[in-house]
């Protein structure tokens, strides 16, 4: 099928874009990379009266070092740019690990970080990665800017804390903590497909080699990214170990309540979370060694 009729706007300044959203918010959809909205238009699952194309907002397409060794990523930065960036590899290995699993290369050339977050597909990698990293999202409207922690940005499947007149403009990431490894694990039927389930993890050790902290975030097994808080707590203070990672996997598995669909049963997905959590923790530890080496 083909997209329905809509009024097309391609503002060149943020102020212009926000004014359009203020005027048409209820009837408008924001077009960023278009890798989710365009299929919905082609299938007429979305019939917005107005499409506000933000691709000319060059100011939102910059990737830069943030204060205190963090990162500031404009919402319009392409996924392919993140994948190729040495700054990302140095300052945020978890994003570099996730990127090859986000769609296909031909999708990542257009797909944006902000678009993936604002679309909030339950099986998408990037929302979970942002929760694992403790990202802070800058959201702007004609009423002014506000900051939303990633953990409260994802409200339900395909639903975020964004108001109708608001635009996600920037993602701020804190500095990568010392002695921290990370991993992203998922199972998909075919490479590049949305995952049946996945886990993003970071593991931080203290100077004595004990676990100082961990972040474990599951995706594809609930309406939003699910933080495995019990599993995270179970690791803190102990030495990293195969048995500790296995126990954390069981806690993570117990903490999710996935749905079944044509691809996998709920029981399969629940078990998958445990296996992938254990694997992600082991890989995080291994990556820590590689980083130190």
């Amino acid at each position, binding site marked *: 099928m083909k997209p329905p009729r809509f009024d097309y706007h391609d503002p060149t300044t943020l102020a212009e874009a926000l004014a359009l959203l203020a005027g048409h918010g209820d009837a408008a959809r924001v077009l960023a990379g278009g890798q989710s909205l365009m299929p919905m238009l082609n299938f007429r699952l979305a019939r917005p009266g107005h499409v506000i194309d933000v691709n000319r907002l060059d100011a939102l397409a910059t990737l830069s070092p943030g204060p205190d060794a963090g990162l500031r990523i404009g919402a319009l930065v392409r996924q392919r740019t993140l994948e190729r960036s040495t700054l990302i590899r140095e300052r945020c290995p978890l994003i570099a690990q996730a990127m090859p699993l986000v769609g296909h290369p031909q*999708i990542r050339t257009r797909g944006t970080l902000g678009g993936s977050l604002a679309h909030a597909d339950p099986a998408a990698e990037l929302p979970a990665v942002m929760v694992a990293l403790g990202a802070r999202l800058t959201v702007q409207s004609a009423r002014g800017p506000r900051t939303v922690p990633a953990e409260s940005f994802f409200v339900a499947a395909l639903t975020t804390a964004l108001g109708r007149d608001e635009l996600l403009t920037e993602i701020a990431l804190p500095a990568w903590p010392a002695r921290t490894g990370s991993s992203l694990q998922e199972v998909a039927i075919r490479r590049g497909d949305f995952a049946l389930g996945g886990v993003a993890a970071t593991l931080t050790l203290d100077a004595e080699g004990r676990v100082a902290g961990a972040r474990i975030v599951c995706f594809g097994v609930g309406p939003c990214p699910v933080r495995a808080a019990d599993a995270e707590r179970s690791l803190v203070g102990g030495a990293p170990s195969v048995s500790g990672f296995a126990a954390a996997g069981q806690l993570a598995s117990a903490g999710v309540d996935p749905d079944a669909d044509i691809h996998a049963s709920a029981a399969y997905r629940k078990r998958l979370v445990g296996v992938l959590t254990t694997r992600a923790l082991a890989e995080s530890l291994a990556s820590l060694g590689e980083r130190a080496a």
Partner: protein
Amino acid sequence: MTEARDIALTVNGQPRRARVEVRTTLVDLLRDTFRLTGTHVGCEHGVCGACTVLVDGEAVRGCLLLAVQAEGRRVETVEGLAPDPAHLNALQAEFVRHHGVQCGFCTGGILMSLTAALRDNPRPREPEIRDTLAGHLCRCTGYQGMVDAVLALVASGAPAPGPDAGSAP
């Protein structure tokens, strides 16, 4: 705001102009207006890869870009690969030699993805070739012939697909 817009872009090195309805996708502009029907339309939701073309050198889905978004861009399609109507380029020739083509529906998009990938990395190994092909569905060949074709191209030492026509020298 307007229903239709005038756009100017470069297609396979040639400057082109068109008046398009804003809801027209790039692949429909290429096929219906410019009659470049080597780029095929499959799923229209970015999964099958048949409509893949290069925009400013990057492989993208032609069904997921509006034609108006190609304003001022350099677009390359499968029609731009062969040096002249009587000859194939080295990648196309290896596809024929290694049975990388059967019905041909997916072929145009796959050749364009591989062209972009080979410009990035002229000597890909098999996993990298497969990663590029993963963005495409082929229901005939089983992909092996395509992998063999690219490996043969690399082994032959033939120059990789040249820089895209519009890029700065």
